[in-house]
C-alpha cells in the first residue's frame, strides 16, 4: 500500500511534464482524484492520522476540562508535555536515555539468551522440564516491584539490580513462548525427519528449532516490550539517571508534565525497539507468510 502511494506521488510529479498543457488541464481532476484516493488508502497516512487523533483528542479533553468517569482537569495537556520535553532535551537528556537503553538492552539480551536456551531444553527434554519448570512457574507471577528489596540484597550494586528487574520482565514471556513453540512441533515433520535417517541432532536443529521460531519471535517481541514495562520499577533503584528514574522522581516532587513525558518516552523507545526485534526476527524467517485482512 505504501508503495502504491509512492508510485502515485511519483506519477503526479512526472506526468504533467510529459504531457502538453491542454492535456494536463483535461485530465487534471481525475488524476488528482486518483492521487488523493491512493493517499487515503496509504497505510502511513492512516498511521499518522491515528497519532494526530490521539493527541488532538487528548488536548481537547484537557482544554474542555472533561470530567466524566475520568477527570482530565488536572492532567497535563500535550502542549504542557511538549514544553517539558523541550526543557528535558535542552538539559542532559542523552545521559538519561542512554542509561535506560543500556539497562533494558542488557536485561533483554540476557533474558533472550537464557529464555530461548532454557525454553528449548524444557520443551524438548522431559527430565529437564520435571526438574526446573515448577519453580519457574512459581516465580513467574511475582510482579517486578516485589523484587526490589531482594534485588538490593542480591546484587553488589544498584545497576545490576536494575538490569535484573528489566531481565525479569523479558525472561518469562520468552521462556514460555519458546517452550510452547518446541512442544508444538508437528509430528508429521518429525516423522519426515526420521524417514530421512535424521538422528536427534538433525531433528533438533533442522525441525524442532525452526518450527519453534515463530513462537520464539513473538516471545522476543513481547519480552522487549515488557523490559521497558519494568523500567520505571527498576529505576526506583537508580540514584541519578534514567528515564524511569526521572518519571519516578517527578512524581515524588509533584511535577506532572515530566511524568507524562517520561511515560511517552518509555512508550516510544519500547515501540521502536519492539519494531527492531520484530524486523530482525522476520529476517530470520523468510519462509513465513503473514496474511492480514485489508479493507
Amino acid at each position, binding site marked *: 500500500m505504501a508503495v502504491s502511494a509512492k508510485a502515485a506521488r511519483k506519477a503526479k510529479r512526472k506526468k504533467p511534464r510529459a504531457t502538453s498543457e491542454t492535456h494536463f488541464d483535461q485530465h487534471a481532476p481525475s488524476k488528482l482524484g486518483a492521487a488523493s484516493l491512493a493517499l487515503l488508502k496509504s497505510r502511513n497516512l492512516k498511521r499518522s492520522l491515528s497519532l494526530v487523533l490521539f493527541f488532538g483528542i487528548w488536548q481537547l479533553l484537557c482544554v474542555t476540562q472533561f470530567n466524566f468517569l475520568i477527570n482530565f482537569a488536572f492532567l497535563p495537556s500535550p502542549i504542557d508535555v511538549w514544553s517539558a520535553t523541550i526543557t528535558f532535551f535542552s538539559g542532559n537528556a542523552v545521559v538519561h536515555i542512554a542509561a535506560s537503553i543500556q539497562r533494558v538492552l542488557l536485561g533483554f539480551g540476557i533474558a533472550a539468551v537464557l529464555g530461548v536456551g532454557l525454553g528449548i531444553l524444557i520443551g524438548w527434554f522431559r527430565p529437564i522440564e520435571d526438574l526446573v519448570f515448577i519453580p519457574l512457574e512459581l516465580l513467574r507471577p511475582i510482579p517486578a516491584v516485589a523484587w526490589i528489596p531482594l534485588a538490593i540484597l542480591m546484587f553488589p550494586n544498584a545497576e545490576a539490580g536494575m538490569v535484573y528487574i528489566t531481565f525479569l520482565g523479558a525472561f518469562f514471556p520468552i521462556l514460555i513462548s519458546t517452550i510452547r513453540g518446541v512442544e508444538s512441533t508437528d509430528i508429521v*515433520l518429525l*516423522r519426515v525427519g526420521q*524417514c*530421512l*535417517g*535424521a538422528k536427534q541432532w538433525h531433528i533438533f536443529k*533442522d525441525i524442532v528449532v525452526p518450527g519453534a521460531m515463530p513462537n520464539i519471535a513473538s516471545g522476543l517481541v513481547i519480552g522487549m516490550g515488557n523490559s521497558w514495562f519494568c523500567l520505571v520499577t527498576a529505576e526506583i533503584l537508580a540514584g541519578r539517571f534514567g528515564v524511569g528514574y526521572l518519571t519516578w522522581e517527578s512524581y515524588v516532587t509533584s511535577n506532572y508534565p515530566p511524568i507524562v513525558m517520561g511515560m511517552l518516552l518509555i512508550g516510544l523507545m519500547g515501540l521502536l525497539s519492539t519494531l527492531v526485534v520484530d524486523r530482525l526476527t522476520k529476517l530470520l524467517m523468510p519462509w513465513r507468510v503473514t496474511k492480514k485482512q485489508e479493507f
Partner: protein
Amino acid sequence: MATLIEKPIDTLMKGSVDVEDLSVVFKRRDQYGPLLVLESTSFRIHPGEFVCLLGPSGCGKSTILNLIAGFLKPTKGRVLVDGYTVESPGADRGFVFQQYSLLPWKTTFQNVEFGLKIRGVSRAERTDLVNDYLNRVGLYNHRHSYPHQLSGGMQQRASIVRALVNSPSVLLMDEPFAALDAQTRHMMQELLLNIWSDLKSTVIFVTHDIEEAVFLSDRILVMGVRPGRIKETVEVNLDRPRHLDIMLSSEFLNLNRQVFELIREETLKSMELG
C-alpha cells in the same frame, strides 16, 4: 517352482517386505475401551513390486504403513524389511505423507537435499543428484521457492523426490494424491510410474481410489473392515509402461469393476458398523 525363481531375485534386489501375523490394539481412554484395528494380518511383498492397499476408511491402511515405517509398534506379530525386523524408522523406508509435509523453512532444493546431507553426501554430489531429480519432476525452476509458494501438486512432487533421492528400498505412500484435483492427480500418477520404472524400488501405496489402484499397481491388497485384514488380492496384469489412455481399455474397466464389487461389500459393512 515359484520359490525357486523367487529366491535369487530376492537376494539380488532389496525391498522385500514381510508382514507376519500382525495385530494392533489401540488403547483408548474413552468409554469404548481398546480398539482392535488389525487382526493377524499377513502378506508378503516382493522386491520391486508396486502394491496398493485399498480399503474403506478406518480399516487400518495407514496403521499398516505406520508399522512398516516403524512409527508404531505392533501389539503382536512383526514386520520384516529385507529380512530384518523393523524396530524404528529409517532411511531405507521412504515415506510420502498425505498432508503437505515439506519443511516450511527449507526451499524445495533444501528439502530434497536434507536426507543426503544427513548421510554426509558431499555438496557437489548432492547438488547434481538433487537438481537431476528436480528436473525430472519439473521443479528445477522452483528449486529456490519455499513450500508455501508451490501448488499442492508441486509440493507432492517435491515430497516424492525427497524420499526417492535417498534410494530407499521401500517407498511407503499414504494417499499422497488424495488432496489433488482430478487432472493433477492423473498427471502425478503417470509421473510416479515414470520415475518408478527407472528405480524399481518397492512401493506400497495406500489409496481410496479404485482407478488409481488399478492404474498403478502390480497387485492390489483389498482390505476388509475392522478388525482389518487382507480380504482379497487382485493381480493387475496390465502391460507396462502404462499411460493414462489404458484407463479406457476393457481390461482396465473389467479390473475396475471387479475391485469395485469387492470394495462395495466392505464399505456397506463398515457403514453398518458405524
